[in-house]
């Protein structure tokens, strides 16, 4: 019998997790980055099973050209949110900054979990290195 996990994964571990990579790959495809009139942000939330340590992902509704609401994550029994992910579909060649926005940084620090970002130049993260308060604090964003 495996003991329950004693800590949550950090941003680097999340970015290297196969399920997170797959979810970000799918979000990138769904963002329609090659169509200037249709490209938009996609993303969602990353959960951690408090018993098994398994990573679970849930997608948010599609966003718009440059924003994606992440305020109301679905709550999963016996899981905590350990991160969010979203795409930056607009290209640097059109003058867009590809890394975390000032809003991303503020929101990540406010929610208390790392925010992962997929852009044309690779993956980025902002906010805390791992969920504020670790395994505690309930199923939503940490208090």
């Amino acid at each position, binding site marked *: 019998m495996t003991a329950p996990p004693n800590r949550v994964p950090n941003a680097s571990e999340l970015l290297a997790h196969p399920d997170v990579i797959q979810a970000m790959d799918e979000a990138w495809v769904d963002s329609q980055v090659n169509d200037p009139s249709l490209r938009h942000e996609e993303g969602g939330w990353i959960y951690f099973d408090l018993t098994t340590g398994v990573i679970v992902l849930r997608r948010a509704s599609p966003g718009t050209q440059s*924003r994606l609401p992440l305020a109301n994550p679905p709550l999963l029994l016996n899981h905590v949110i350990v991160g969010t992910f979203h795409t930056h579909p607009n290209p640097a060649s059109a003058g867009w*900054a590809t890394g975390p926005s000032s809003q991303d940084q503020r929101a990540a620090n406010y929610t208390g979990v790392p925010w992962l970002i997929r852009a044309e130049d690779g993956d980025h993260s902002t906010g805390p290195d791992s969920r504020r308060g670790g395994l505690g604090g309930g199923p939503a964003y940490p208090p």
Partner: protein
Amino acid sequence: MATVSPGGASLAVADVLRIAHDDAQRVYRDLSGFKITLTPCPDGWHVDYDLTDPLSAGGGPHYVIDRDTGNILTRRYEQ
């Protein structure tokens, strides 16, 4: 029209906002949900578009506009 003159500049606030807004509208198309801040600074007017929803991913445009000529000196399109 009334003007606000940081350091003796003559460009009206409304003109600064129009210059920024024209560019922002062209690039972002939908400017609803943004709080717009205009700040007179030594290097020009700083015009910042920030989302009002604190838990949205995303971003807006940020400009520095010459306080005399109205030229956009720097622009940053955040997403």
